[in-house]
């Protein structure tokens, strides 16, 4: 994986490979389910392989949880809730979360490397974004555990019970943190189902809970595919379900919970518009577009997957964007020079390629960079479409890959009209040097997170979540505690 990693941009200016080593830890050959504080095999004995998408090699064998395993995990969580966790003072709960935050920091390098190997994301991102943010999330929520009375003025907050949490493959450990930290801080116990393509860091998180001395059963992790998740949602022992993933699955979960009092929060898909006005600092805006759509291979629910650019600067922006994109290095996720890593799975790679075809069939014009990509593994070159219409599927549907749809606009109202014209409402971006315009646009976009003159920034204290079909509930900040408490 070495030659292909050297950028060929400019005959005089190449990058030597700079791979992060993976020799400072050893993955086990197989991982069990984490139930009641112990790693146990699936009742059926079934296993599946988790694949490194950069070389298509199996990293480890993972237990495939069935209904009985789900039941065991929910019972373990129930016992821990009733006997230990709900009775513990907020202060003591918080101290466990602080311990977890510290251990994540201590094991940061291992976690970053495993995250990149298992999921395909560039080591720069897992090292500088995913893992530090995951630790920060636990540290932030640890402090809330004994201060919940201040989060809900006029009310008394108490825990809900056992939460079933299902997370996606795009930010594996960070999603563990987003889900588990607020749940535990508020006094709930958890059964977590990580995505089948990226289970490793969630399982390492089980080890971290052991190291932290977290009481058995407070955190449980069951691995498997969609059927495992469905079995979890169906389990009558849950008081709360939290799901991050596609809008279709989110809707199916809401339907399957009909008739039950189980609470639900959903963090679903997006199709964010990144709006560039003619008075924006264009070079910075181009960086923002790049970050918006190519961060994490575009596997980001809040990705800026639609570019709306004011007509007067459209040509300039597109030219600069092309030039900048040609410098993006696609390749080995463990190489510190890599900008865009491997597509998470073969299935996702095929899905993105389908959309590339759909876009062209609909009449849009495709641009892709010419960078080399490795032979083995799943890769998509940075891509964008021009000549797209609002009704095109590549404008309306979430692709979840490094594919940008570019549209132009003349007036602010037209930009807002186009920005809001999808079923989604997760995020949005605006680039302009005029303060008043920023506020008009950020107010006008119907979405839960808006970035002005920046994009894809996250923080544990900053609430995240969607409007419309991007789901409901918030994660992070004071607002992110609400889905995990009962108020009276």
């Amino acid at each position, binding site marked *: 994986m070495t030659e292909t990693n050297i950028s060929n941009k400019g005959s005089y200016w190449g990058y030597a490979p700079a791979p992060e080593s993976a020799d400072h830890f050893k993955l086990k050959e197989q991982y069990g389910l984490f139930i009641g504080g112990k790693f146990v095999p699936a009742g059926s004995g079934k296993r599946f392989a988790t694949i490194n998408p950069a070389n298509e090699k199996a990293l480890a064998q993972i237990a495939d949880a069935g209904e009985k395993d789900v039941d065991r995990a929910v019972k373990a969580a129930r016992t821990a809730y009733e006997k230990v966790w709900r009775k513990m003072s907020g202060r003591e709960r918080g101290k466990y979360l602080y311990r977890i935050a510290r251990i994540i920091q201590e094991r940061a390098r291992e976690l970053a490397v495993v995250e990149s190997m298992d999921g395909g994301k560039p080591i720069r991102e897992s090292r500088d974004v995913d893992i530090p943010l995951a630790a*920060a999330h636990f540290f932030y929520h640890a402090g809330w555990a004994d201060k919940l009375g201040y989060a809900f*003025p*006029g*009310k008394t907050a108490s825990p809900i019970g056992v939460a079933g949490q299902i997370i996606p493959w795009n930010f594996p450990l960070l999603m563990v943190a987003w889900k588990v930290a607020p749940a535990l801080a508020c006094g709930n116990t958890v059964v977590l189902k990580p995505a089948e393509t990226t289970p490793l860091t969630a399982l390492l998180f089980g080890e971290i809970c052991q190291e932290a001395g977290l009481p058995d059963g407070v955190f449980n992790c069951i691995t498997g595919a969609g059927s495992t998740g469905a079995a979890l949602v169906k389990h009558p022992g849950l008081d709360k379900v939290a799901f991050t993933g596609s*809008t279709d699955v*989110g*809707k*199916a979960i*809401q*339907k399957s*919970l*009909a*008739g039950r009092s189980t609470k639900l929060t*959903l963090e*679903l898909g997006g199709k964010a518009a990144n709006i560039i006005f003619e008075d924006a600092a264009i070079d910075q805006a181009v960086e923002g577009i790049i970050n918006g759509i190519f961060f994490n291979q575009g596997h980001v629910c809040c990705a800026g997957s639609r570019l709306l650019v004011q007509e007067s600067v459209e040509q300039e922006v597109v030219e600069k964007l092309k030039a900048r994109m040609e410098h993006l290095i696609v390749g080995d996720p463990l190489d510190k020079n890599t900008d865009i890593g491997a597509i998470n799975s073969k299935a996702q790679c095929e899905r993105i390629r389908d959309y590339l075809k759909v876009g062209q069939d609909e009449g849009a014009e495709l641009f892709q960079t010419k960078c080399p990509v490795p032979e083995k593994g799943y890769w998509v070159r940075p891509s964008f479409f021009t000549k797209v219409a609002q009704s095109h599927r590549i404008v309306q549907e979430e692709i979840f890959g490094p594919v940008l749809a570019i549209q132009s606009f003349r007036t602010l109202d037209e930009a807002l009209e186009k920005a809001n014209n999808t*079923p989604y409402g997760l995020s949005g971006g605006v680039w302009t040097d005029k303060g008043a315009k*920023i506020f008009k646009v*950020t*107010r006008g976009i119907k*979405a*839960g*997170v*808006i*970035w*002005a*003159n*920046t994009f894809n*920034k996250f*923080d544990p*204290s*900053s*609430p*995240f*979540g969607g*409007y*419309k*079909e991007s*789901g*409901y509930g*918030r994660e992070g*900040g*004071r*607002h992110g505690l609400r889905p995990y408490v009962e*108020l009276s």
Partner: protein
Amino acid sequence: MSGSGVNGKSDRLDVRKTYKMLIGGAFVRSESGRALDVNAPGGRWLGHVCRASRKDFRNAVVAARKAASGWANTTPYLKAQILYRAAEMLEGRASTFREVLQSIGLSPAAAKTEVAQAIDLLVYYAGWADKYLQVFGSVNPVSSPYFNFSVTEPMGVVAYVAGEKRPLLDLVSGIAPIVAGGNTVITLSTGRAAVAAMELGEVLATSDFPHGVINLLCGLREELVGQMATHMDVNALITQGADAKESAASREACALNLKRYFPREANGKGDEDPYRILDTVEIKTTWHPVGG
């Protein structure tokens, strides 16, 4: 429903009121031309109310959507004043409402209490209209050079199904937090409570609410709740007193467009609760760089 009618002692024939629904600021009959009888608890016929059709509901959604952005952008101070104005209007017609509530079976004391509570509830939420953002919004201490804040924004169009136990209060306690939160609303009142609801329309129509902000329908619950739950241009559905079958069906149907769904007990608890405003607002977080 007062008046002595042809058999009374009055020497003149009184003029009865035709109860009409309120859609987009206009008092209208059901487009379907259908009506329902309303009888007093003893069986005495009181009159007709409309039996709203699904088309009436769709028309009301169009009116509510048209009014949504204007109401959302109305200043908090003005929203508060309009809610307060509704309290003023209701106070001015308190004796009428007491009579109406008695005609549909409430005791004089219960009618008096309910009208008073409804007025006070409007004043209560008028006071919240320009404050809840300060309580529920936040400036977030992010660990990077950004100014980051979260505000509340109205969801948009909300459908509300009122219970029947407290004919006036069940309706007002639903409407007030929804419109205080900057949403527009379509309500459904059923049974005898429909009479109080249609009477309330005359109060709301003279309280400076822009047309379409509050739309009042009456009809049959089982005929309309499904339509409310499946309508693709409704952002949230709140119901009072749904049974297990209805709430299961509504939760499932609301998944169509991920409409927010809040089934509430019809026990009258929590009428005064700013967290009800929180049910129909979204939290929006904005990031802005801090730097030269």
